[in-house]
């Protein structure tokens, strides 16, 4: 066997290399990406930005070759919305059956590289090297899609899988995109989502993660948001063995806007990391970001949020709030809010809090007849519910609310 591109490869890295070398075709982009990955290795706790999410350690002994598991495909709580449904099952893309709106074009396409800002991101490099086919979805200019698009990411086996999606929302178009990460499997899943939101377009992205306690998952959504376009995202995650969702938003035109809401509900030894970077390149961008983390038992809720404002991006108005609620002594929350501002006429703010349930409020509620559990559930719901309260469609909000209530039933 030829020498490895890794220095002291872990079992996981050796497995990856074997899988990579077995492939019949790889593009130049992929070859370069694999070499980049080999040099960088999986991020570990000593790498800036990865202190609380050590993928190197979590994956080192994972067997990447484990197969998929055949089984009945579960129904989705979003089925009632009559979405245009795409399925990415262990990386395999299934296009929707039946009629789809004519303003929606889609297909299985060759994967691409990534944006310059993500080239030094080792999991992205790995994804670029390993993904065989990507899902492309395009909403025509000016189209207002009345049916939501639902991309279901389902993993079944204990092995690894990679997926890429390319979403382009045409000028002035309006779309609701639901992404669910499902499967109680043990495997590793990496998803790279490149998105373009053209001038005046509007996307509402809803992300719901419901994974097993042993699964390891990494998702990146890199969105290029043009002038007067609006990127709105609400995420709810109950974590996984190791889970990180990164949202990278670049404002490429004036008057772009983003709303980012996220809630992490982590029990047992689960882990949920929400990391985001919003880069303001042009004037008058607006951002409202709210994160709520609830951790119990030995759960860990991580939030890293960064606003970068370039010199040109005057009149930027960006606010970030991250609040954590710790229900037990062993629970953990880590927040890293950052502002990096080179413009002088901006309003940027961040706030971060961490606390326990308010004993005055608990006593008040119990004096009114609520049991200790009911009182806790009501207060946790009030805390975390703020992150999903702004979902404007009742049918989508109620799915998120049910997920929150199910979690409270088990862990309050």
């Amino acid at each position, binding site marked *: 066997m030829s020498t490895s591109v890794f220095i002291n490869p872990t079992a996981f890295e050796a497995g990856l290399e074997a899988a990579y070398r077995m492939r019949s075709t790889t593009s130049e982009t992929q070859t370069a990406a694999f070499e980049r990955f080999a040099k960088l290795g999986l991020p570990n706790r000593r790498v800036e930005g990865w202190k609380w999410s050590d993928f190197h350690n979590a994956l080192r002994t994972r067997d990447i070759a484990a197969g998929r598991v055949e089984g009945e495909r579960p129904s989705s709580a979003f089925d009632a919305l009559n979405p245009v449904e795409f399925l990415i099952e262990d990386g395999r893309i299934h296009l929707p059956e039946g009629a789809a709106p004519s303003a929606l074009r889609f297909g299985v396409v060759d994967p691409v590289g990534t944006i310059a800002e993500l080239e030094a991101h080792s999991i992205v490099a790995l994804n670029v090297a390993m993904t065989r086919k990507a899902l492309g979805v395009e909403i025509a200019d000016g189209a207002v899609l009345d049916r939501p698009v639902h991309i279901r990411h389902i993993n079944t086996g204990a092995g690894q899988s990679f997926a890429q999606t390319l979403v382009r929302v045409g000028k002035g178009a309006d779309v609701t995109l639901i992404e669910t990460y499902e499967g109680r499997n043990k495997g590793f899943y990496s998803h790279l989502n490149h998105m373009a939101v053209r001038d005046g377009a509007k996307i509402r992205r809803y992300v719901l993660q419901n994974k097993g306690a042993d699964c390891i998952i990494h998702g990146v959504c890199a969105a290029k948001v043009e002038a007067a376009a609006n990127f709105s995202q609400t995420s709810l995650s109950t974590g996984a063995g190791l889970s990180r969702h990164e949202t990278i938003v670049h404002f490429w035109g004036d008057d772009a806007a983003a709303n980012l809401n996220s809630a992490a509900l982590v029990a047992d030894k689960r882990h949920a990391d929400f990391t985001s970077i919003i880069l303001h390149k042009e004037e008058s961008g607006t951002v409202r970001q709210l994160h709520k983390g609830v951790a119990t038992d030995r759960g860990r809720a991580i939030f890293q949020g960064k606003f970068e404002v370039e010199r040109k991006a005057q009149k930027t108005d960006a606010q970030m709030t991250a609040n954590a609620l710790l229900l037990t002594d062993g629970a953990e929350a880590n927040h890293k809010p950052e502002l990096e501002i080179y413009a002088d006429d901006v309003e940027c703010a961040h706030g971060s809090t961490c606390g326990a349930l308010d004993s005055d409020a608990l006593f008040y509620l*119990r004096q*009114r007849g*609520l049991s200790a559990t009911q009182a806790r559930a009501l207060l946790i719901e009030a805390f975390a519910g703020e992150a999903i309260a702004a979902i404007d469609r009742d049918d989508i909000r109620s799915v998120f609310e049910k997920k929150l209530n199910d979690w409270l039933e088990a862990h309050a």
Partner: protein
Amino acid sequence: MLKIENLHVSVGNDDTAAEILKGLSVDVPAGEVHAIMGPNGSGKSTLSYTVAGRDGYDVTAGSVTLDGEDILDLDPDERAVKGLFLSFQHPMEIPGVQTMNFIRTALNAQRKVRGEEEMSAAEFIRTIRDKGKLVGLSDEKLKRQFNVGFSGGEKKRMEMLQMAMFEPVFAIMDETDSGLDIDALRMVGDVVNALRGPERGFLVITHYQRLLEYIKPDAVHVLADGRIVKSGGPELAMELEKSGYEQFIEAA
């Protein structure tokens, strides 16, 4: 009804524990309204929190019984289900909690434990709107998050709304009159007087005699330095208004 005997209560950790109630005894028979008056720091709020079952109030001696049953070992919600209601001196704002949802959840939680039927949504809304009018809280206020952005007076109205909704067996009103204007005092009187009956008791804790013009007490007790130093009829309240608490602080 509510019988408190030789109650000793300490607050604080072992080395910093301070005894606040020092052998307090009060007996409020069913159908009666008793007032407890006393200066700041005499132990009025400690008394209400201890009877309601708040953590951190350590009963070192004495007993509290409701209808003959010892309630000191019960959790706060178990006491509430027995019909004990506390109108808080400083009601909480609870952001994110919808007022109607909370009151309905609480009402039905109490009913469920008592083996009573839950109140339907329609009946609940009708009832809370009626009682809202009685206490002077508009529908708009009821639709808000619990007490969020409410004035001190509105928060007290919210306490009276809950008392009217829950129809407790025994209510402790901890300085419900503080911060209220004359119209609001009359409203408090209306709520209490509407609930007064042979099966119900009230303990009204106050600094001032004014509220007692609207709620005629059957007995008045003076609390000073952790114990009752004088008991009498309604005329005792008038006497206190005139000559103050000073005489009792020295007596205690």
